[in-house]
Structure formats: structure tokens, C-alpha cells
């Protein structure tokens, strides 16, 4: 029921976004989320965007893990 894959906002009309994930485009209501715009990645649950992905936090998580696990900087 919960689509865990973040989708990219490609269009916004009246608080309804068109979001794309793996080439599939669907609509998602923006009623539950503040401050989102075109180009942002969001988590969509049952037709509603509920969270905006934080790119800095994502990069940080990966970097921290590689460091803790003694794995080099990784592919870039």
C-alpha cells in the first residue's frame, strides 16, 4: 500500500502534482506537504505526497556508512 520509492515532481496544478517514477506518471495531492516544487523528489502514499526527500541527508548517510564500514569514497 505504501509506495516506498521516491517520485519526482514534474508539474504542479492547483496543489496537485504530476509525479514520475521509473517513467510512470501519476497524480499526487500536495495537500499534506509544505514547500515543494518542480524537481523535488517526494514519497507518495495512496495518492498524496507526504514527504520531501532531503538530498543532503541522503548523501550524508551514504558517506557516513562508507566511512564507518571502512569502504572508500565509492563510485561517483
Amino acid at each position, binding site marked *: 500500500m505504501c509506495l516506498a520509492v*521516491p517520485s519526482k515532481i514534474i508539474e504542479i496544478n492547483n496543489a496537485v502534482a504530476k509525479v514520475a517514477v521509473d517513467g510512470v506518471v501519476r497524480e499526487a495531492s500536495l495537500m499534506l506537504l509544505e514547500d515543494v516544487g518542480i524537481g523535488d523528489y517526494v514519497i507518495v502514499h495512496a495518492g*498524496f505526497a*507526504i*514527504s520531501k526527500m532531503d538530498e543532503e541527508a*541522503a548523501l550524508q*548517510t*551514504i558517506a557516513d*556508512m562508507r566511512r564507518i564500514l571502512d569502504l572508500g569514497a565509492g563510485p*561517483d
Partner: protein
Amino acid sequence: MRMTYTQEFKDPEISKALVARIREKITCPLRLMEVCGTHTMAIFRYGIRSVLPDTLTLLSGPGCPVCVTAQKDIDTCVMLARRSDVILTTFGDLMKVPGSGSSLAGEKAKGADIRMVYSVFDALAVAKENPDRQVVFCAVGFETTIPTIAGAVLTAKAQGVNNFSIYSANKLTPPALATLMETGGVDIDGFILPGHVSVITGLDAFVPFFEKYRIPSVVTGFEPVDILKAILMLVAQKESKAPGLVNAYARAVADTGNPKARAIMDQVFEKADTIWRGIGKIQDSGMVLRESFHKFDAAKKFDMPVPDTREPAGCDCGRILMGLKRPDQCRLYKKSCTPMHPVGPCMVSSEGACAAFYKYSR
């Protein structure tokens, strides 16, 4: 490299190193519960159980919405579906759950007007298209879903869609975890907390639970790296006897959650006691419509005698979602209970422990 938020968290090199580190760190048997049904599915899909040491047991918790829906609520939805003035709408998972006498799928086969929807807004659209019928949405969900239902109720009110109502069997996560901790015989060393419930509630909602029970608790996402990272953190906390409440899903979960979604949820709903299948009544763990929204409450709108219910004989769903039993320890598992002919809801929902076990352990 452009961040996709998924590929990076499937990295085999990181996953392997995490598994090695888990194996290094663990010295005694550990039982961890993944609370959320989406985690259960991900854990099976990525074969995570098979790479973990034998001393580490993963238990599926009470976080599959359909699995914890009380028989009484299923029976009430069946009764609603039988009314000729009603179009019943629901998420697909609920259709096949057996009630005491019938299921929604069974009623549909007999001609009831039941429609599966992807979003509660689709149900609202059905109401607008059918002004002479009553459209009821069966709401079963946790904190992730409840704000979406609140959003639809607010929209219905604003647009004057008075033939729309919901039957609320919604539930809140933290009270269920507290109940697990209070129940005798439940033996859990740490919790993988639900990622998308936390998107809404934030880490903050779990603070009182953590302060009270001091049990290792990690919020995480749904990719292999997320899940293995959470497991490593829980093992490390347990081994060093330093329990913590940690957010390992910072890319999606803010410590304060999503305040806008919570405000909408709290505007429409208030807490009430509710019954969880196999567990019983848990205080303040349900969400019912506030008085100003009673017009949209199917339980108030329709005169429905509370049905006499019984849970299916021999079904161990309740014990399974409390971590007291594994699906293959239920005597009906794979015998009279299969995904084609489910006896209990844990075999119906794709997020259910029995269904996941059946699909992947052969």
C-alpha cells in the same frame, strides 16, 4: 552522480559490509521486530533473513493495517456493502479478508456495489459521480494513511459532498508497541520502527515509548542498506547495553515529522479506544471523526447493529503479529490457509506475515 534515493541504498558493497559487521558484533541470540508490513515485504523480497546469522530472529509486528483490523470492523463493512443505497469503496487488500460469514469479495460476487480505489480521493470522485447514492470509504490505516483520509473529509466538507462518509478503523502505532511491551511472554530485544509512519509522526512520537521501556529502537527506510543498517545499530545498542532511539532514515523523516499532515489529521480526527485483531482493545489507539465531522461518519450516519463476531477458529494471526509465533507454527498454515483460500487476514494482505512467509519460503 544524481541522487535517485533508491539505487544508492541498494549498494551491494555497503550491504555486504553491513552483513559482515552484524556477524562480527553479535554475541548472543537476538529477537528484533519489524513493526511495519512494508518492511516485512522488503525483508523477504531482498532475502535479508537468509544472510543474517542464525542467532538473529526477525519478527513481523502489528504494522499491516489489514491484519490488525478487527473482525467486527470487517463484518460492519460487509453489512454496509449489503445496503442497496450504498457504494462501498476500499483499498484492495481488504476485499478478501474473511469476516464472520462473508468477505467483501464474496459480497461483490453476489452483486454488491464495491469498488477498489487507489486513493481516498478516488472514493470522493465516486461520490461526486453518484449524487443519488451513499458512498462509504472503509478506512483502515495507520498514521501514514490517516492524514490522507482527513484530507478527503475536509475536501468533502468544503465542496458540500454530503453523500460521502468513512467508516474509520484507523489505528495509531505507539500505543500498540506499548501494549506489546506490557504483554506477558512477548520477548523482543529491539524494534525496527516504521519509516513512513515516522514521516508523519516524526521521531518525537516514539520518545515517550522509548523513555518508558528503554528498548533499542531505530526508524529506517525500505532499501537493503536501510534495513541492514538498522539491524546493525540495534545489535550494537544491545551488545553495548546502550539502548537508543535513532532516526536512520533522515532523508525522508524529520525528527518533528510532517506538521502540516498532523494538523489536518488532528483537525478531523480524535483519539478513541479501538480493537486490534488478536490483541484486543487498546486505549487511545484509534482515530474517530470529531463531532463537527459526524456528517461524514458512516458509523453515525447508518443505523448498524453491532454484529456478533468471532475470529476464525485456529487462526494464529494475533499471536503472530505480537511476535509470539511464526506463521509456519500455525497449524492451518499451508494446509487450509493459503493465499488462494486465506483463513485469516495475515494471509490476505501482501504485507501480512503469513502471505510473505508463504510467497518466499519454499
